[in-house]
Each structure stands twice: as structure tokens, then as C-alpha cells.
């Protein structure tokens, strides 16, 4: 990791995993926002329901830090 980069762990769940991965280490420039990761992974926005950083609910505009674990989950709308 260069000084201007951060390493994060991304975990995808449910349908968001299809043709992608469950867990992956990824490197981004410092000050990357969650939305950049969502865009890059082409996560369908209508299916994305929950963003968690290090176990805490977060937003697409939040900035990621080195070592963060970012979890992206589909919507939960009842059974």
C-alpha cells in the first residue's frame, strides 16, 4: 500500500454476490467514499439496502479508512 492508498475488505451478500465475490481485499486511493466502491463494483442501486462499515451502519457518502471492512447487503423488506 502506498501512502496515498488504503486497503479495505469488501464483503458482498445475497444477490449482490452474483458473478462477483463474497469477500475481497481491495485497494483504493485515500479519501475514497463508499459510493465509489459501489459504482466500481456495479452494484445495482435498487437492490442495495444496507451499508455497514466495521459493523456500524453507514452511508454511501462516508469516507473509507485504511483497514475498514465494508459490507454491502441487499434490501430487507419483510417476509
Amino acid at each position, binding site marked *: 500500500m502506498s501512502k496515498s492508498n488504503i486497503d479495505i475488505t469488501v464483503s458482498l451478500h445475497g*444477490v449482490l454476490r452474483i458473478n462477483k465475490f463474497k469477500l475481497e481485499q481491495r485497494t483504493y486511493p485515500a479519501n475514497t467514499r463508499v459510493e465509489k466502491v459501489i459504482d466500481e463494483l456495479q452494484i445495482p442501486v435498487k437492490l442495495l439496502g444496507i451499508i455497514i462499515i466495521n459493523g456500524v451502519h453507514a452511508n454511501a457518502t462516508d469516507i473509507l479508512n485504511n483497514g475498514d471492512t465494508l459490507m454491502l447487503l441487499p434490501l430487507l423488506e419483510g417476509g
Partner: protein
Amino acid sequence: MKIETTDPVSHPELISYCRCTINLKTGAQKIEHVPCKNLEDVLGGFGRSFQMLAELDIDTAYCEENPIIINTGLLTGSSAMTGLRTYFSSYSPIKGSKAGKPAAMWSAGSGKFGAKFKWAGLDEIILHGRADKPLYIEITEGSDGPLIQLKPAENLIGLSTHDKVMTLYKDYDNAHFAAIGQAGENWENNYAGSVALSTVNQLKTGEDKLRFAGRGGMGSMMGYKNVVALVAQSEDKLKPITEAVKNVHTQVIKGGGAARLQPIKRGGGGGTWAAYDVMQPFHAVPVNNYRPQGNDLPEKLFRENVEKEFDIQSAACFRCGITCHNYISEKNPDGSRGDFIAKFDYEPLNLLGTNIGIHDARQAGKLIYLCDNYGMDAISIGVTVSYALAYNERHPDKPLFNGAHFGDYEKIYELISGAGEGKLPGIGKGSMRLSEQTGETDYAYHIKGLELAAYLPETNPGYCWAIAGGHMSMGSYGTLIRDGKSDVDSWVDVITQDKLHIVGFDMIGLCKFFDITQGIGTQMVVDCLKSDFNLEIDPAAIKAAVRRSFLLGLALEFRQGYTKSEYCLPAEVYKDPNPNIKLPNVSSPEFMAELADKVWEVFEKELNGILPNCK
């Protein structure tokens, strides 16, 4: 409905609904057009039926004075997508207060029966008294309105829900059906009987692809009254779909809630089943009587694992583009679809699968099939079985029933069939009564006598204020997991403002997936009412009617003897907090005490004077 106004708020009396009142004892019937008293009457469903139930003084569910009200919503049978709902309301045999009185309850189901009922010209049937012999009710279209006949049903007794429907189908073209199973017939020993509603898929394939009005023992009430089925025969009378309704449908399909439910191949999340994937990362999928163990056991029933071995087909009711459920079938060696096993919806799959230690999709499917065919609420029966298994785990030397334990498929199968056949009242009467008998009530997962849905109570304190079952009458199950809300004030808002509006769907005739986040006080609903009935209404007026109906439900609970102390989560949640759940704690005694104080502060002011005098 006869509609002679464009303004249902100022002039509800210019809208009337067609009601048939039947005295089952004498066979006498009266069909009349009843002017609506208020917007709740116009919207229908429980908004109307609870006003009637509120006028009655009922001490026990199984009494001749306790009616069953079978009705539809204003948009049932309309051009609006999901407009298929039928409602069954009564004082419930299973949901009751500690004071021993039954709670007013309704249960809703889709399928096509409700639309046919409406198209035959009827909006509501009230069944009084009790028939001496088993009968079914035939509803047909006459030249001057609906014709209703009571028909002998001895030949249907002992048949499953599916077989009752298929037997009646031989005699009726162009009809749809509501039927109870053996559980409802065994009402004395089974309080969790459901009412099955036929679907187009079922009649076409001959497979048991029913939908259910499952909650609250409405099938048991039907059994008590000796009414084992209803037939509604009519031509389809769908109005042409206008541009406005087409636009609404596009919004429904593309909207947030329905998007998750769309089939995966259409870019959706694959039905309600997908809730597993969302909750498991937090270890919030109910396992072994709502006690997740922090492991990956629930993943065995993830879709991605089940589809390796089975054929999965997305399924929908008549004209519904939401496609909320899935059919699971065997996969033939050549990859083609084999025998149908069961429908997979989230709640039955969890409560008859992971939550009783069954992690094999075929076994879970067979238990769902069993419950559906006996005509039992998968939630109440699944949770009562999980209670018994939890008891047996604690008392291996003196177990209940056949000594079944978590994951013991054969013995669990015996428990469920025993309940369906009326041979195991301990299971059939629900977890509240069973736990009171054993004296171990802490881990009986019911609130106010009705078993919880497949969301952990630790994630949903809103359950306590649900008036007709956890996930259908208080939409707060996603507030912690989805929205990350863990402060008391947010929860007060959610319970007292936003999420009670889910009950509006059980008035108007639509499924909650039509617009789960907003409820029915929306422009989409307004557009549908304008298009189909030329009604002009403000979304705020709809919201106000929904709120009044919800509050009436709460007031009725107090009338039936509930005390505030019964609005609480199962005690195990506080006494033995589960360290495996990876979410903020919104169920500690301190949190719950503060939440209750603040919620009652809002609701109590509005409850005064809401109840009519009893007749």
C-alpha cells in the same frame, strides 16, 4: 360497492357495500347494501370489520355470538396490482389476554378468491351462529346481485386444504375457493387453523400452490362454525388498465420494496426468501427457537445453496408482477423440473426450517407442505414446535410429547401431523398455553398470545405494539437491521408514526409489497382510486383512517383484558441476552421501559373514547 360520490371523506354514506349476513343455525340470510359510516368502512378489510367486532362483548372465541367477517378491500378485484386480498376477522381462539379473553384479530391472504368474491357482487359476508352440519358457501352472480347458498359438505370433511379446493373445482368453472384443512376441522384441539385461498397456478397445475390467511386461527373459527369452504364463481371483471394505473404499476415494480422481491433473472433479489442473506451477517436469522448460535448453519437454506440441488421457480398470484414467492421442485437428472415440493416464503421456511434445527431444504419443504395441507399457520405451529424442542433440550429426562429435539425431522413431522389431526392439543393450542402448562414461559416466543414472525425480538421491539401479528401489523422489523436505528426516540417515532401504517394494506385490498415503505396514504393509491372509481381523496385522509383503525385495534386489546405488562418481549431476551447477535441492543430492560413509557405517552391520549358501547 355502489359509489355515488367522488368524495369518500365528506360523503361516505353515498358509498355502500354489499353485505350478506347469514345465520348458520337457521340458514336465514339477508343481503343488503349498507351505507358506509366513515372512510374506514369505505376502505374495507379490518378497518370495517374491527368496527363491528368492537360492538360485541365476547368472552370466548368459540361461542355462537362471535361472528366471522369475511370481506375484501376497496381495491380487491380492481385493476391495481396485488388487489387480491381477502380478510377474515373474528375474536381469535389463539390470540388472547392473560385475563383469558380472546383478542379481535384479522388475517389476510392473496390468491384469486377475493377478486372472484368481489366480482360476484359481494363485499362482505358475516357468519353468525354455528351450523349443525358441515357446509360450504356458494357465492354466484345473479341477475340482481350475488346469490348465496349453503351446501352440504360432508364429502369434504377430512380432506386437506388442497384436496378440498380440487374437489370443489371439479364442480365449479370460473370459480375460486377458500378452504380450511383438517386442523380447522379439529378446532377444539387446534387454535391455529388457517384459511387456504386458491390460486391460478394451483388450479392450472393441480399442485398445492395455495396462499393463506394464516394468522389468528381464522380457519379454526371456520371449523367451529362448521363452514369448511367458500366458492366464489363469477366472470372476471377487471376494468381496463388506464395509463395512470400503468404508471403506478411501473412504480410498484421498480420501487424499493418490490425490487428485492422480483425474480433474480429480472434483476431482483429473488422473493421474500432473500431475507436470510440480509440477516445472517448479523447472526439475526432465528435458529433453534430464536437463539442464533453465531455460526453459519442458516446458510444451508440460502438460495445459492438450495438451487444446487433443487429447481426454483419464481411465482406470483394473478396479474402480480412482484412475484414474491418461490416454488421448489425436485431437479431431474437432466436438469429439468421434477415433482413439486413446496412454496418457499421466508416465514414458513425459517420457522419450519432453521428455527427448528432443520437445515435440509427437502425436509423443510415437506414440513411446509404438511402445514399448508393441514391448513395451519406455519408461524404459530412452527414456533410452538420450536418451544417444545427447546423445552426438550432443557429436560432430556422428562421431555414433552415424543421427545423430539432440534433437527429431528421424523419426530417433528409427527408433532406437526399430530397437531393437524387434532391429536396434539399441546402443539395445536399455541406456545402461550403450552408454556403456561409447563411453567416455563420465558422462552415461549409469542407476544400477547400470538407467535412471533421470523425476526428476532432482539431486532424488533415494535412487535409489542403489533395488533395482529408481528410482521403484518407493525412494519418495524427492518428498523434496526436495515436502517440502523438504535436510539429510543427513533423507535418511538417508528412505532407511533411510520410503521403502524403497514396495516392500511389490510384495509384496502393490496399486498404490503405494493409500497411497503410508504403504506397506502400515497399518490399511487390515490391514482388507483381515481382511475377505478373516480374517487378524489387526499393521501392524508387515507393515513388518518389507517391510524384510527390501528388505534381501534389497540383499544380493543385493552377491552379484552390486556394490560400494559403484556406488551413485552419474551423474557429470555432480557434474562439471557444472546451474545451472538451482532447488532446494537434495543431490547434491554432499560431500553424497553423507556420505549414503553414514550410510546404509551403518544398512544394513550388518542385511545380515549375510541371504543363504542358493546351491544
